[in-house]
């Protein structure tokens, strides 16, 4: 489980950034900031088109001071967590059932494939008709978005479990339910981990888009409204936060969970 290794991972993370890679990464970031600053200074009206990194940093201090940024950030993260937990809670069992029973899989698979092609944003208008510009709407869009990647990954995960394990437990006298409990569930756990990471990644994009369209407070709403009132620095700040929070979430929570399950059981030879 992630907590066991979190400290080690944290240390590895910084060791990673203190080696030669750190220099390369720092160079790239420095280069981007430099080009950004130069372009910004060359513009006639940088505040509107491309505020300098320093202007963006200053606006972040203002927003933290006013308490807006923490509140927006909290709103967005809460929506992400609630929506994707429900998406995973529905998608995991659904994928398992489809993986276990071929008849049910044949029944539902075309439908799943159909809906998978309709992105969360494309269902937004109809959900707004049903639930208005509410948190409920965003919740449903996130749930919808996170459901498919996990369901598909778990489905293929169950199917990839080698028959020999199922045979072995059958010959040990295992019943159908015992095979599900002792072989299919644990055997698909690495796929559940990978699929969760994928789903939460999609949900993260959906929550930002959802806030914009539904007009609910949060990081997505922040960059959308800031543009309306010509506060380009806040737009850029919001974008930076969206990207950085994902990197942190992914690096400290999702990837450790994924690699722990996969490595512990030696399902991937390293």
């Amino acid at each position: 489980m992630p907590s066991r290794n979190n400290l080690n991972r944290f240390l590895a993370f910084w060791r990673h950034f203190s080696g030669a890679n750190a220099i390369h990464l720092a160079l790239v970031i420095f280069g981007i900031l430099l080009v950004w600053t130069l372009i910004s200074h060359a513009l006639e009206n940088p505040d509107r088109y491309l505020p300098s990194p320093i202007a963006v940093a200053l606006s972040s201090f203002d927003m933290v001071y006013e308490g807006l940024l923490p509140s927006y950030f909290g709103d967005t993260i809460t929506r992400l967590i609630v929506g994707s937990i429900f998406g995973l809670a529905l998608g995991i069992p659904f994928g398992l059932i489809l993986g276990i029973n071929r008849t049910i899989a044949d029944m539902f698979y075309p439908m799943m494939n159909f809906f998978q092609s309709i992105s969360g944003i494309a269902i937004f208008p109809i959900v707004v008709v049903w639930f208005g510009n509410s948190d409920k709407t965003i919740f449903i869009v996130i749930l919808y978005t996170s459901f498919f990647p996990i369901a598909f990954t778990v489905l293929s995960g169950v199917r990839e479990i080698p028959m020999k394990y199922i045979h072995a437990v059958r010959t040990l006298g295992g019943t159908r339910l015992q095979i599900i409990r002792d072989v299919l569930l644990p055997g698909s756990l690495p796929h559940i981990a990978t699929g969760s990471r994928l789903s939460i990644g999609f949900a993260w994009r959906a929550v930002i888009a959802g806030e914009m369209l539904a007009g609910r407070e949060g990081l997505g709403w922040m960059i959308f409204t800031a543009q309306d009132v010509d506060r380009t620095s806040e737009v850029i700040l919001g974008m930076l936060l969206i990207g950085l929070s994902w990197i942190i979430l992914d690096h400290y929570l999702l990837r450790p969970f994924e690699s722990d399950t996969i490595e512990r059981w030696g399902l991937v030879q390293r």
Partner: protein
Amino acid sequence: MPAKLVIQDLTHYYPDEYTGESVHALEKINLKVEEGELVTVVGPSGCGKSTLLNILAGLLPYREGLVTVDGVKIEGPGSDRGVVFQEHAILPWRSVAKNIGHGLELRGTPDQERKTRVSDFIKLVGLEGFEDKYPHELSGGMKQRCAVARTLCADPVVMLMDEPFAAVDAQTRITLQEELNRIAIATKKTIIFITHAVDEAAFLGDRCFVFSARPGRLKAIVDINIARDKRIWSEMNVDKEFLSSRDEILRLVREEVNVAIEE
């Protein structure tokens, strides 16, 4: 006393996975295995050895003929028949001890009794100190020892082994063969051991069933009259009985291999 396992007129066809054509795998197999006996089944590739094992394991339904264990017809898998598969099939997400105790866990044996039995079998196969390791931390030979212990711990009436040592290196294989012999002495289990290696068939078997090329028929039965406690490789290599049995099996198998090639 009636035989432990009886096969009567077993004939089997199965559809080829790719072409869908009916493949004639086994033709009128008749044989008996006595209690406490270790028999080996040897034959050229495609002689239906694995088909036979899957039928005995109950993983493959059969229509023609009758297979019984202790007089009861085989209809599906059951814990009276334990299987050691060709590629070790111990579960990667269970520790060695949890794998070995799995059979008992499935039938709800009380924890205390299970733990005692598991540690007995861990000792029997020499995996002390590895109880909490996961399969990927074990060598190929240790994985197969764990698989053997798992099967034995569930206390089957008959143990079926499908080329269990084919995937390990030559040195380990010799050790595992001697260990299985020791286990056969210690547990007095009825064991059916399928192999394509003639040396192995002669070393382990009380009797060796030689199968013909497809469709698999029981071509011959070779008796190997060597006391179990004498079966050590360093002695077998100069043992007259062993060498003559091995040569006899080899001759019978080669006839079939040649038939298979000519076809």
